[in-house]
């Protein structure tokens, strides 16, 4: 053992060298994790899933809108006319807007996920670097955890496209007003979601005998 603090200095040098080596190795590993092809694939998969989910919603809305428009135009006697063409064009525009909006939402969500990973990467590097100064490391980690959870909650919500075909609402409203007007003239009132007739027969109170699962037959 040498005098003048030799062994302590040597131990401190060893500790610092080990710490530096550990940090260098850890930072390299962390960078490779967050830049790995697997991680990149996760962003792509997420974006594709989000896009497919949005398009699924959009397609369902379009199917409903197509059907409603057909009925509405037919009720008003506008099928095959210029109004039909205009409404169909509007519906196509709304659909295209929905496609773009869904792509935008999916892309934005994937970017958010990437940004979140970048923040997490920096946080992990900070933890590795801080080493034994772990009081600040702990604080940093806990603060980062809150950020992660907040981001995760925001990300977790599947994006809602909203009603993409609300622009055609006038047709339905006009059509239903006309329908109600006709019925008031005829003195009849119908119930149900699918219009006044089924197989050409009037459906009104008491006109149908229905067997609900697990229940007795009832007249509606």
């Amino acid at each position, binding site marked *: *053992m040498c*005098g*003048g*603090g*030799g*062994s*302590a200095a040597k*131990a*401190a040098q060893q*500790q610092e060298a*080990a*710490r530096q080596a*550990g940090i260098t190795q*850890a930072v390299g*590993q*962390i960078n490779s*994790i967050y830049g790995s092809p697997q991680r990149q694939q*996760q962003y792509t*998969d*997420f974006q594709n*899933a989000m896009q*497919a*989910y949005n398009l*699924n919603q959009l397609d*369902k809305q379009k199917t409903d809108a197509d059907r409603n428009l057909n009925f509405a135009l037919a009720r008003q006697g506008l099928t095959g006319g210029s109004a039909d063409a205009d409404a169909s064009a509007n519906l196509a525009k709304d659909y295209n807007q929905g496609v773009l909006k869904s792509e935008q939402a999916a892309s934005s969500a994937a970017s958010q*996920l990437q940004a*979140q*990973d970048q923040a*997490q990467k920096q*946080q*992990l590097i900070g*933890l*590795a670097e*801080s*080493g*034994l*100064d*772990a*009081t600040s*490391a*702990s604080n*940093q*980690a*806990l603060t*980062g*955890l809150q950020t*992660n*959870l907040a*981001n*995760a909650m925001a*990300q*977790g919500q*599947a994006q809602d496209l909203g009603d993409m075909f609300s622009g055609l609402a006038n047709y339905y409203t006009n059509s239903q007003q006309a329908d109600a007007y006709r019925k008031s003239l005829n003195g009849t009132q119908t119930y149900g979601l699918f219009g006044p007739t089924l197989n050409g027969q009037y459906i009104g109170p008491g006109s*149908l*005998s*229905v*067997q*609900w*699962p697990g229940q007795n*037959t009832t007249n509606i």
Partner: protein
Amino acid sequence: MGAGAAAGYIAAAIAAASAVDQNQTMRRQDADAAAGIRQNMALQQDANKKIANTIQQQAASNPANAQASQMDQYLQQLQQQQQLAQQRLARTGLGDAYNQWAARDAGDVNDYSTKLAGLMSAVDAPSLQRQQEGYTLGDLGTELGIIGGDAAGNQYVTGQQVANQRPNPWLQAAAQGAKAYASGAGGK
């Protein structure tokens, strides 16, 4: 040999003893400091191991488990609510056309719902995965905090130990006294 020379020898001997004492004190201080640093090195290695474990967990982390788990939950919910969802389609007595279309639509409902569950679980999975990763980082922060506390405590104790390693005050006082005496005796 005169009194002055004797005083000089005595002063030199005491000074030598004091120097040895000081040197030994410094060695003990050095040894204590080195021991403290080694203890902190062990703590550092523990911290490094925990960091390495966390890095390994992050490297192995993927959304597949979260997606499968989420999908199971969605399918289970759909299964539980299936009867109510298809109650209207299951009505009877409405005619052959209705029966045919209802049977086909019931299949559509199942396909649509399963597809939706798959997409929703795929959308949810990365967030759930990162939530779990966040918990892992939080755990690491807590563990490093504990290690840091241990290291700070160790540093404090080591500092106290080093500070308590002092030269023998009596020997130092004797050395100074002898030196002063020898100077006085030599001057006569």
